[in-house]
């Protein structure tokens, strides 16, 4: 599914998936700094993560300060805190 077809929950799930790939490969690269396949993998998922964070910020408000822009910065304080899920 293309990012612009995803709803908010799907886009957040996509961000969770590609960001987790970045986390796991980052720790692998910390102990295997010359592994070229791993570096390619990192670059691939890092690109996907950056685009996804930008796309999310445009529609729903920024998840990171770096993906905030002047038009939507004020919504940083309105983005739900991560523990608010579950039943209300």
């Amino acid at each position, binding site marked *: 599914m293309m990012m612009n077809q995803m709803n908010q929950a799907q886009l957040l799930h996509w961000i*969770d*998936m*590609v960001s*987790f*790939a970045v986390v*796991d*490969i980052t720790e*692998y690269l910390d102990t*295997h700094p010359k*592994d070229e*396949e*791993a570096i390619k*993998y990192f670059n691939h*998922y890092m690109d996907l993560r950056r685009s996804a964070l930008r796309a999310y910020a445009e529609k729903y408000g920024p998840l990171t300060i770096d993906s905030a822009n002047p038009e939507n910065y004020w919504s940083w304080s309105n983005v739900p805190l991560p523990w608010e899920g579950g039943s209300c």
Partner: protein
Amino acid sequence: MRNYSMTRPMEARCGCMPERSSMDSDFALAMAYVPWQYFDTVYEPDKALEIGTIFPELDKPFLAAGRCGRP
């Protein structure tokens, strides 16, 4: 196919498996050694997130707890 090695990843890629006796002499006593992992196959990102790692060779689930949720 092994995706770990007691020696550094580059040496392992030659495909040669160290014999038991030479492996013993490579490793000094009174020290701990975890084998080197090297990058091989990875899970797709949705499965990786669900499981908690992109690396199938590190996927070591707890089986003594009985079923809960995921089959």
